């Protein structure tokens, strides 16, 4: 008791005070600058344009129109008991109709090349929760997941914070367009071994964030072979699968399993969400699709901490089951994203800036290494700061994505109007012209 008296402050856990949530990284510093001085076409035309937020606002009007026309089904319909049943429904299995709708939507995105069983769909309040849940299930504290770099900065928090699990990077570089190689996989695995850390799985994002590109089929086969040999799990976060500009260019791990007659599929788990493809991040709709019965059972029970509002399930269920609507939406969304991408890449090229060739997602992976004084992280951050404070664009530096090559940046193009994108591109053009003049 004497110890307690010396510390009048009441104790908190390491989790509460740790920095694992990464609040200090540029990812969040950029946010702050934007919050303090946000761009607005009329009221603040010289403000910071947010290009660090991977949100999809290009197809929102399509959703809005549908929901307005189908307001009755979207709410509780004419059935008197509709509201009551829905309000009381807290079963972690989720609404059967909603699970079916999610499964069928995922099938449509893959153009029927893979089938999804609604009974294997586990619902979570967002993909963030899905990834964390899978990490809790597949790994113990101190274990590791292998994740290819560059990766989504949020993983540092989502996969590690409460779980106590480590991320060991699989290093990728521009020599082969940042694709994962068997050598890189093996090196990462050996790295973990040398640190005495048990590897429990590989987690990939396909299409990739921040690269904005799909993973080649052959690479997926190699990754699947690797996890099979090592007897570990594979988590494929396919949250951007509906945002591939051309559907034939996307291969889901589900298709590979199908082609292998689902042999040894119990180590594979897919994460999906409606936040990106449907532009509904606030709705908190995510799912884990697992081919492993035990993982499905466990994840279902654990989802008690992160259930999707029954109202939201009801609201979206009928819309997602309307295959004519979803088919049309998916096609239009792809088109509009492709147009944005091409506008972006074209504008950047005019400014003399190159990007990685992308075919998916809500962002470009841009090469600004010519601007760096030295090929170091510090120089990269200096350029990032210059762009943030002088050009007034918030973009994400590759170092916050753990990219091993300095000079790359993720630039989002779908979270703003076309006009705003044009303004941003003009600013980049002026900035690059200035540099040409000053550097002679």
């Amino acid at each position, binding site marked *: 008791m004497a110890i307690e*008296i010396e510390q009048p402050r009441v104790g908190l856990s390491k989790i509460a005070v740790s920095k694992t949530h990464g609040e200090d990284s540029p990812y969040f510093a950029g946010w702050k600058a934007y919050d303090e001085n946000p761009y607005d076409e009329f009221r603040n035309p010289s403000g910071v344009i947010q290009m660090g937020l991977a949100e999809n606002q290009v197809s929102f009007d399509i959703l809005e129109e549908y929901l307005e026309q189908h307001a009755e089904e979207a709410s509780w319909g004419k059935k008197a008991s509709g509201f009551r049943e829905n309000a009381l429904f807290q079963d972690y299995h989720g609404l059967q109709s909603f699970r079916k709708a999610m499964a069928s939507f995922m099938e449509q995105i893959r153009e029927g090349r893979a089938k999804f069983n609604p009974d294997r769909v586990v619902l979570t309040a967002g993909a*963030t929760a899905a990834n964390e849940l899978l990490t809790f299930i597949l790994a113990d504290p101190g274990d590791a997941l292998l994740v290819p770099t560059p990766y989504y900065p949020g993983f540092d928090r*989502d996969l590690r914070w*409460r779980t106590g699990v480590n991320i060991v990077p699989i290093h990728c570089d521009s020599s082969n367009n940042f694709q994962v190689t068997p050598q890189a996989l093996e090196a990462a695995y050996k790295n973990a071994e040398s640190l005495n850390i048990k590897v429990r799985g590989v987690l990939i994002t396909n299409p990739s964030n921040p690269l904005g590109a799909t993973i080649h089929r052959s690479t997926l086969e190699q990754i699947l072979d690797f996890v099979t040999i090592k007897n570990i799990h594979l988590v494929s976060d396919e949250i951007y699968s509906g945002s591939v500009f051309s559907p034939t260019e996307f291969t889901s791990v589900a298709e590979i399993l199908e082609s292998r007659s689902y042999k040894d*599929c119990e180590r594979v788990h897919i994460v999906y969400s409606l936040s990106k493809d449907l532009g509904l991040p*606030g*709705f908190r709709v995510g799912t884990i699709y697992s081919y492993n019965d035990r993982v499905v*059972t466990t994840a279902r029970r654990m989802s008690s901490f992160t259930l999707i509002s*029954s*109202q939201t399930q009801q609201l979206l269920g009928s819309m997602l089951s309307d295959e004519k609507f979803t088919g049309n939406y998916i096609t239009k969304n792809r088109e509009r994203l492709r147009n944005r991408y091409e506008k972006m890449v074209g504008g950047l090229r005019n400014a003399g800036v190159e990007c990685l060739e992308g075919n998916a997602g809500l962002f470009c992976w841009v090469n600004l290494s010519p601007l760096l004084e030295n090929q170091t992280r510090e120089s990269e951050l200096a350029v990032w700061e210059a762009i943030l404070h002088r050009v007034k664009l918030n973009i994400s530096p590759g170092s916050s994505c753990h990219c091993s090559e300095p000079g790359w940046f993720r630039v989002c193009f779908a979270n703003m109007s076309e006009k705003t994108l044009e303004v941003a591109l003009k600013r980049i053009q002026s900035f690059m012209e200035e540099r040409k003049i000053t550097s002679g």
Partner: protein
Amino acid sequence: MTQTSPLRDPEDETRRPVSPTGGRTGMRLIVPLQGVVQGRGGLILGSLIPCALFYFLQFYLKRHRSPPPPASPSSSNLPELARTSSRSNLTSRGSMGQARVSSRASSIAKPNDSPYYIGLDRASEDAYDELENPNGVIQLGLSENRLSLDLIEQWLSRNLNGSILGGGGGGFEYEWNRDAMAGFMSQIMGRAVSLNPSQLVLTSGATPAIEILCFCLAADPGHAFLIPTPYYPGFDRDVRWRTGVELIPVHCRSSDNFTLSITALDQAYNQVRKRGQKVRGLLLSNPSNPVGSILTRETLYNLLDFARDKNIHIISDEIFAGSIYGSEEFVSMAEILDSEDVDRNRVHIVYGLSKDLSLPGFRVGAIYSWNEHVLTASKQLTRFCSISAPTQRLLIPMLSDTRFTQEYIETNRKRIQSMYDLFVAGLEQLGIKCVKSSGGLYCWADMRELIRPYNEKGELDLWDKLLNIAKINVTPGSACHCIEPGWFRCCFTTLSKKDIPLVIERIRKVVETCNLPLKMPTSGGFQS
């Protein structure tokens, strides 16, 4: 992280009184191993020790044999799961071996053996319906309130307009309007309370709220919370599953009407410290679940003193704060802290709309804290459990309509009161008395005279009869870690008035089959 089965709790040797028909002494030999399997060490030790003994013996006998590999938690020692009738496309198993799941997951995946969950499952599989399934199971095991949903339905039909999408898909990073929730909670907790919206963190239900607090307050190995018994069975899962925090029961007894004594708290605290464990806080439900009592102002002050003295936290789960009836006044921790100049950093309140507003499906919960660090960390942690945007859009106007909420709160209380009166009177006709409760959606029924033998087994036999013969699902006290056998929680707010006579009739049938006249032990007869 095993869910402690109510049938085995070797940690607490004094838990069960020795029954006249024995039954406990026979278990003593098994207890040490069971303690290892069920308590700390879990599956690893539970399989390692017998394996190690076996292999050691073999090694001794055949000295040239090389040492066996250590038993891994992924070995076949784990119980096989009942396979779901899998319409999946699995054809053959891989030949390379099965990728394991974590130790945390292994224990969670085990079939639920608590009567609390078994009963809930049975009641939903064979649910009573007046017309469709008149012989189905009547659910009295789920603390749900169906008495006042009509009021909400009416409000919605009068006020629901405007696009549910409002101003966009809304990112969860956005600052949602917490004023409405703070205002509603203030109303619920009594006019003396005025909650500050900036001290509120919104979560998808009270379940993640509790877990977040545990992660913030006590997630380092060896940390524990004291909790008065009997308590809500869900805490075993919510508090322990992923955080690693332990729950230390502080037993309350019928002789004091199940009130919490500071002496008992003190004793429990010291016992834990002697074992070298850290107590990080106290977890309370007020109104309590399953007993339904309200903590007095004096008790709250005493608890604050205790917490200050030991330098620990208090989590006050006030999820039933709006579901009170009777003449007692509900006092929230918020009220005490508002008035006193106490160290506020150690108190955290949990709330949610599942009980008072009957909206469990909508997943709306909250943490209210005075501790800046906890608020900051909790806000970050809500990325794993945020409230869905359309649900916020739906509820904010309703919660802000203070005339409606005031009317709702009053009407709801009256309806709960009248159901309580009817139900308790009905039980009394059968000779079953209930603790006089003032809050919650249930009553705490004394069926000690009806169980044979007078121990946990007898209690579970009665529970079984009630479930399978009377077709009534109630929650046995052992599932709530009650130290006295024979108590049952009966939720009455899922019923309508006309169901009550039917329920009482069904219970009567079972009561009549119990051998009554044996005298019930007095409190002096309990061991400890």
